[in-house]
């Protein structure tokens, strides 16, 4: 079966062949992505979701189209999907789901079912879940990996229980340093290391780290971690373990490929408040806290715009200090105007911004936005290069044609 046949929502275009398809992709794919990335990407459909940009379907890696960031809450049916390993549990498998808490630094191992989790205090937090490699595809020169554009992220209202309350039920022994995390997904080849991660005990005991069972008022979608996933606000999504089914309170650092070799950045390259000391070495640190960033969701690159003007809309976020200001340029960076900030949904959430352009002269209009956090951190002026292509927060640039 040809790839083109499986396109949804682009059926008419698909029939007319590759050239038309490429033209259509302009609307939802950055021209800065590699040619090969643009070739494999399709507007794909996974059950229960609206169209998402499919980069790969096994394992499923789907990003949210940029226009979904016109609102500060990302709907569940537009939320991105990211798996490393293709053995994904089914709803049927997850009927018998339970969560075990143990490890060498736990007082007594316990096992919790979903009804058990409901007996803990329920907490809600609005937080951005962003893949470490969001915008990797826009690295110049390109680096290998899943070649994400702008959409490997989303912001949701997460509801669940505090990890620290669950850990307290098992009892944390003195000497504990990390909390190890495992989910129900598996590798098709048993020689591939399972996707297990850990977080520092200090982070695990913070009030903001949750085991979420609901997202935007609904159970988690299967491909976003049903029935329970870890929420680590401010930290990149690699720690937000999906289908979370085993936790170990440990006196030792976790050792495996995914924590020691992958998801690492040069030491001290990005600001962090809570260093992950037990996983740092002389040269590299695990990637942990996000960097301040913003995305323009409207207008889209290459669109036509009226002379009477239009509204620039998007969202900004950071690693949990909150957004102080967003500025927008309409003249390729010569002048910047302060955008109006939308509702404050908490320091870990997307902060909506908008700017009414006013009347504009005909011709190309080069738009960009840059955010500053409450601690004064600003988006990078030039790309902060690192081998795995993480934390790309160079301001997005786009051009609309005013006529």
């Amino acid at each position: 079966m040809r790839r083109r046949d499986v396109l949804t929502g682009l059926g008419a275009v698909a029939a007319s062949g590759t050239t038309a398809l490429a033209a259509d992709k302009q609307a939802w794919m950055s021209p800065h992505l590699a040619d090969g990335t643009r070739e494999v990407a399709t507007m794909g459909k996974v059950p229960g979701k609206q169209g998402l940009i499919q980069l790969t379907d096994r394992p499923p890696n789907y990003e949210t189209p940029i226009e979904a960031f016109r609102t500060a809450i990302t709907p569940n049916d537009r939320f991105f999907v990211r798996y490393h390993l293709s053995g994904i549990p089914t709803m049927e498998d997850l009927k018998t789901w339970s969560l075990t808490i143990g490890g060498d630094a736990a007082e007594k191992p316990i096992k919790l079912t979903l009804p058990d989790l409901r007996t803990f205090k329920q907490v809600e937090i609005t937080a951005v879940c962003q893949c470490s490699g969001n915008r990797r595809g826009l690295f110049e020169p390109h680096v290998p990996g899943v070649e994400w554009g702008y959409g490997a992220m989303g912001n949701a209202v997460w509801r669940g229980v505090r990890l620290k309350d669950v850990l307290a039920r098992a009892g944390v022994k003195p000497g504990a340093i990390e909390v190890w995390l495992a989910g129900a997904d598996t590798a098709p080849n048993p020689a591939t290391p399972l996707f297990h991660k850990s977080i520092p005990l200090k982070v695990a005991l913070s009030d903001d780290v949750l085991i979420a069972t609901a997202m935007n008022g609904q159970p988690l979608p299967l491909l976003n971690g049903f029935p329970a996933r870890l929420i680590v606000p401010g930290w990149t999504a690699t720690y937000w373990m999906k289908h979370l089914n085993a936790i170990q309170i440990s006196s030792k650092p976790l050792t495996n490929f995914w924590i020691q070799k992958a998801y690492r950045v040069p030491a001290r390259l990005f600001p962090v408040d809570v260093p992950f000391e037990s996983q740092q070495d002389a040269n590299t640190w695990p990637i942990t806290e996000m960097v301040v960033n913003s995305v323009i969701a409207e207008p889209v690159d290459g669109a036509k715009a009226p002379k009477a003007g239009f509204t620039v809309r998007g969202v900004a976020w950071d690693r949990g200090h909150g957004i102080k200001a967003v500025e927008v340029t309409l003249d390729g960076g010569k002048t910047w105007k302060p955008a109006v900030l939308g509702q404050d949904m908490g320091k870990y959430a997307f902060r909506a911004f908008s700017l009414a352009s006013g009347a504009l002269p005909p011709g190309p209009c080069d738009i960009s936005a840059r955010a500053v956090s409450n601690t004064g951190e600003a988006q990078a002026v030039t790309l902060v290069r690192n081998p795995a292509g993480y934390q790309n927060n160079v301001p997005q640039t786009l051009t609309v044609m005013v006529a």
Partner: protein
Amino acid sequence: MMRALLLKGALMGASMTLLLAAPTMAADGDLAAGPGQDVVAANCGACHTTDYIRMNSRFLSPETWKAEVTKMRTAFGAPIDDAVAAEITQYLIAQYGAKP
């Protein structure tokens, strides 16, 4: 329709792993024709689709493609011997490498 239906079927109960590994999911359907294509199709589509290769093109240097094949073997356990790895690497450089 094949992919969409398979995914849907998987979510309705049967194991996704098994369905996605079924032979109807020809993983090599879109690989460029050239010497080594069959070896790549046979060895590089087991854990993920060969779209992982195409997605990462055409910008990797010969050394980086070599390192990727080594990573698949040493980090992820791809059961590939040295001779096959060399053949795969040559194909990737020729078909999916950065233009010199």
